[in-house]
């Protein structure tokens, strides 16, 4: 008899309940199926059809009466047979929990009384495998408490000890890998081969890589400290591997984690159990199973300093709004769609395999948008359809299937999309004729969807490929970038120049050249635009869970009285404010937009008082229209600035530094009038000059090359500009903060719209006079006016790629809330002033990290 060892209670012997033992010999379909789906006539090959859709097993009886085909029969047909992978150990593990799964917290199973439970079902047979308790808010609170306690010990450990622990977990996974892969395949329906050959080894690789990072943390990541308790929220489409991508770096740097998994996902619980049974540090990884509505509860726990969320775009948006002002930093990874650009210079057959990897396999979570060059459209379509006919679907636990079934929700989603696409006039090709009550969804190719149809805007679900044609590479780029999504993409072209041009031009987090879906623990993976701007893997993944040492913990600054509809909506009108004791020379007046000073659209001004409360001068009162103009000007300047070499950017920043130096006395006297001591004012100007030079120098060194195991060829880690960056400068350090933020943004290739200090905007306007002559028009735009109103305009603007806000707590809360519109990354100070004169704050790596985004460009080589 089979003997299976379990991590928990020693050995367990015996076979599971025979009724649960799914017979994998070809069985006759249930009565309703007869004549509707025959493997011999169906083009789409069913490795095995489900025997059972309801609760009973009529098919089992029939299976017994129909003998397996003999070798003689198979010799004639040469068909594939079943290749069952025994899942006895997965069932036995469920038995150790009496088929009733709770939560795994603090190294113990937690099964509180009086909780609802949800059945965990086999997605193909519908058979109930176990029941899973649904957490309630108090369970979440308890888990966060545990993680908070564990954080004190865990973060205090030397990195080497944490590394040891992670290595032990990797070994633990290795020892129980069969249990892991059969359980995952059983409950998710994904092909076991994919989990066994890819996911489980990658999970181990992740632990090993991050163990090395933990070991070198004190040296490489000096000046950074772990954030604290991390709340990770997973939605159903994301597998246990996505959890590993995030918990590994979090644990490595010293954070502890509470994971909220959707109901009926036992694999994360198993992983938590494996980690818990290492003995020491039981509370560092806690897994709670519960409904999506608990997400905000977990995220707004005061001890949770960082929230990582993987899920659908709309859920992410909602969470962003809910979390405004709650304190925790939010990292979003949204959507699952991917993109493939197939040019006429491609190896079409290989590209077709890329499509299979991207959408018609169990490797991918989502669907694929496929752009095909018109000249190879027909040829590609023929090859795709030929290839689709050879795909096999079946029970995930069969060793020879390409695609499993992923449950009713995924099925319905795909079905809705295809139906919608059809009604919008698209051509739909599906391999095989699948009965509507089947749990499987056939691989689907949708073509001729016009860009304006609603389906073209929607996210393509698994396992659908939406193909459209383009004429030139330039058009491909325009089409590819014209979606709100920015996850991953692949480019297929044998022409190196073209491939690189496309690879650099695509606005996504990951680009593979002539490959699709490669992943490695050393390569940062993330996205931009509505795919969310968080990273996992590589150094970028570590920074997600770190903050500069000495930063105070993030507390909630949530204001109940905040009215998002009216914040900054109206601008108080300004009247002449007494005698203007004119400075000499007079301060520049106007909004600095498109390289020159312009009159504000509202044609009104606001008075600026000096430290004695006397009128210093008037500045222009900017409004929504001026912000619009400034953003447009910035967008126009962007392509030119991005294409500048880092050296050219550096020399312009240095030239600006020199100009500032020449203006030193004027600037210092402006500052002095605002109550800064003359000596301190001089220091502020000097520091500003130094900041410009420092960022100029840093512009030279960006991005690097990664060498990755299993890949011949490099992976380029590029640091790309965000685009148009809006910055609301703080009131403190009116010149230094303005210059520091500006310099960091420009050095990384961004174009900028700034709102200078509200109390003392004049020094910033002085600097604009130099920028007018030195910098390309529109690169830097400075808008003065009511800060709340301008902040509102900027935060709600959909075409601003990132926003930094240094101002009031209320403003911060509004910015976080409003950023949900286009999910732009935001950086807010939550009303806390920042010591801009300190190296770490004013010129530290934090600014550099936030001023650019990472892109990984995979370049496999070989001939």
């Amino acid at each position, binding site marked *: 008899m089979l003997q299976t060892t379990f991590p928990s209670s020693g050995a367990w012997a015996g076979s599971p309940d025979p009724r649960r033992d799914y017979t994998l010999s070809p069985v006759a379909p249930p009565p309703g199926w007869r004549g509707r789906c025959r493997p011999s006539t169906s083009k789409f090959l069913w490795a095995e059809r489900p025997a059972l859709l309801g609760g009973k097993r009529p098919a089992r009886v029939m299976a017994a009466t129909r003998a397996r085909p003999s070798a003689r029969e198979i*010799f004639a047909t040469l068909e594939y047979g079943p290749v069952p992978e025994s899942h006895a150990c997965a069932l036995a593990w469920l038995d150790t929990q009496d088929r009733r799964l709770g939560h795994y917290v603090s190294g113990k199973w937690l099964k509180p009384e009086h909780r609802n439970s949800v059945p965990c079902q086999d997605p193909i047979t519908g058979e109930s495998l176990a029941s899973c308790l649904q957490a309630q808010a108090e369970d979440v609170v308890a888990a966060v408490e545990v993680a908070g306690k564990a954080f004190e010990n865990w973060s205090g450990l030397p990195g080497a000890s944490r590394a040891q622990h992670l290595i032990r977990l990797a070994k633990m996974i290795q020892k129980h890998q069969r249990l892991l892969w059969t359980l995952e395949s059983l409950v998710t329906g994904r092909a076991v081969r994919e989990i066994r050959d890819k996911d489980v080894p990658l999970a181990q690789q992740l632990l090993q890589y991050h163990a090395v990072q933990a070991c070198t943390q004190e040296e490489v990541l000096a000046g950074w400290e772990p954030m604290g308790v991390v709340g990770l929220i997973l939605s159903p489409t994301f597998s246990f591997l996505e959890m590993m991508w995030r918990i590994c770096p979090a644990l490595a740097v010293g954070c502890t984690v509470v994971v909220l998994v959707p109901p009926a996902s036992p694999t994360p619980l198993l992983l938590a159990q494996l980690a818990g049974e290492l003995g020491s540090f039981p509370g560092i990884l806690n897994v709670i199973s519960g409904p999506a509505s608990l997400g905000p509860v977990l995220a707004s726990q005061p001890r949770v300093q960082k929230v990582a969320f993987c899920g659908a775009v709309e859920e992410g948006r909602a969470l962003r709004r809910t979390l405004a002002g709650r304190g925790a930093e939010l990292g979003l990874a949204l959507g699952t769609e991917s993109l493939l650009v197939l040019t006429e210079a491609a190896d079409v057959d290989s590209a077709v395999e890329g499509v299979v990897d991207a959408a018609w396999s169990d490797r991918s979570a989502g669907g694929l948008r496929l752009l095909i060059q018109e000249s190879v459209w027909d040829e590609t379509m023929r090859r795709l359809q030929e290839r689709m006919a050879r795909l096999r679907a079946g029970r995930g636990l069969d060793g020879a299937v390409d695609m499993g079934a992923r449950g009713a929700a995924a099925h319905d989603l795909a079905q809705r999309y295809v139906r919608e696409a059809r009604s919008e006039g698209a051509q739909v090709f599906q391999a095989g004729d699948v009965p509507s009550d089947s749990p499987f969804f056939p691989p689907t190719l949708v073509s001729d969807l016009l860009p304006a149809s609603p389906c073209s805007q929607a996210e393509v679900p698994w396992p659908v490929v939406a193909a459209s044609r383009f004429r030139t590479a330039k058009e491909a780029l325009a089409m590819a970038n014209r979606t709100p999504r920015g996850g991953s993409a692949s480019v297929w072209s044998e022409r190196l120049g073209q491939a690189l041009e496309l690879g650099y031009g695509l606005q996504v987090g990951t680009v593979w050249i002539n*490959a699709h879906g490669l992943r490695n623990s050393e390569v940062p993976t993330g996205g931009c635009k509505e795919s969310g701007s968080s990273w996992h893997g590589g150094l970028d993944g570590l920074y997600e869970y770190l903050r500069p040492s000495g930063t105070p913990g993030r507390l909630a600054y949530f204001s109940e009285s905040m009215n998002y509809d009216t914040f900054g909506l109206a601008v108080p009108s300004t009247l002449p404010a007494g005698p203007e004791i004119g400075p000499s020379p007079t301060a520049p007046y106007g909004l600095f937009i498109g390289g020159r000073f312009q009159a504000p659209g509202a044609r009104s001004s606001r008075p600026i008082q000096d430290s004695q409360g006397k009128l210093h001068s008037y500045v222009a009162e900017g409004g929504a229209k001026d912000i619009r103009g400034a953003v447009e000007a910035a967008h126009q300047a962007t392509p030119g600035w991005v294409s500048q070499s880092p050296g050219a950017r550096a020399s312009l920043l240095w030239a600006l530094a020199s100009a500032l130096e020449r203006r030193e006395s004027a600037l210092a006297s402006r500052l002095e009038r605002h109550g800064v001591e003359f000596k301190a004012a001089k220091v502020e100007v000097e520091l500003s000059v130094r900041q410009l030079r420092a960022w100029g120098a840093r512009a030279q060194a960006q991005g690097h090359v990664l060498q990755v195991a299993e890949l011949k060829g490099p992976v380029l880690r590029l640091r790309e500009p965000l685009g148009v960056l809006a910055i609301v400068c703080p009131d403190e350090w009116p010149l230094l903060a303005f210059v520091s933020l500006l310099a960091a943004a420009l050095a990384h290739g961004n174009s900028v719209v700034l709102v200078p200090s509200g109390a003392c905007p004049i020094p910033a306007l002085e600097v604009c006079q130099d920028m007018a002559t030195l910098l390309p028009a529109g690169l830097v735009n400075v808008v003065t006016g009511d800060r709340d109103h301008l902040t509102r305009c900027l935060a709600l603007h959909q075409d601003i790629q990132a926003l930094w806000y240094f101002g009031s707590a209320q403003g911060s809360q509004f910015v976080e809330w409003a950023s949900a519109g286009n999910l732009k990354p935001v950086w807010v100070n939550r009303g806390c002033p920042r010591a801009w004169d300190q190296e770490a704050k004013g010129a530290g790596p934090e600014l550099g990290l936030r001023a650019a985004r990472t892109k990984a460009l995979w370049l496999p080589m070989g001939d």
Partner: protein
Amino acid sequence: MSARNWGTELDLSWISKIQVNQPAVLRRAEQIQTRRTVKKEWQAAWLLKAVTFIDLTTLSGDDTSSNVQRLCYKAKYPIREDLLKALNMHDKGITTAAVCVYPARVSDAVKALKTAGCTIPVASVATGFPAGQTHLKTRLEEIRLAVEDGATEIDVVINRTLVLTGQWEALYDEIRQFRKACGEAHLKTILATGELASLTNVYKASMIAMMAGSDFIKTSTGKETVNATFPVAIVMLRAIRDFFWKTGNKIGFKPAGGIRSAKDSLAWLSLIKEELGDEWLTPELFRIGASTLLSDIERQIYHHVTGRYAAYHDLAMC
């Protein structure tokens, strides 16, 4: 073998644009071996099928009539009779697809097979096998002599020099002459892919060979350092499919060299099934050139039937 490929006019546009991406093909080759497996009855049936695809080969300097005779007898009785009976396959007339020998041994083989009373075709390598570095005149003469001796399939090697220097017209002309010299015999063209430098060259050479009238394209001689590999096979199979789509002619494929284990042979079968489809899984369109593979298949069948692993003395040598 029935249908013959009469070839087509040389059309260089079929090969001028083609680009094969090597890393992508390597990944596909890696995947295809893990994505399909067969077990139990399916495995036994597939292995027996594999036997019928084997060109049982001996190409050694020390071949004499006695070991050629032994080989021919093994070709007729590849699997022990009692094992076939246990599988109810004894009346299927399972033999290997052909025997393959050097030109000088063709008459020995023909004689031996006649004595054994069977019609298994004899294949002969030719054209300066394995290097092909002899004069065209002698290479053509070699084909004619082998055909005269009774070989009905000729495995010719191409001139690698012509591929490496891009002389596609010259390559086409040479193979065309081989074709003519073969007469009624089938032409199997060995591309010696281990010496063609790139997968793009493999594709182009495959296409030229098919245009020139090859009935089969074959990966390698078994004498190069790199033999039949999956990436190379994928490229050749894609060329075969493209040729079929362009002309309607089905061309056969023969991997040779380095295929030793039963497991390998199963992987090759599923490769053909996946890339070309079931129509290609017949001895008319698919061969495996091998010498030691057969004994491993027999051992696996033995294990399937008896549940035990065979000792070497349980099975006949070939």
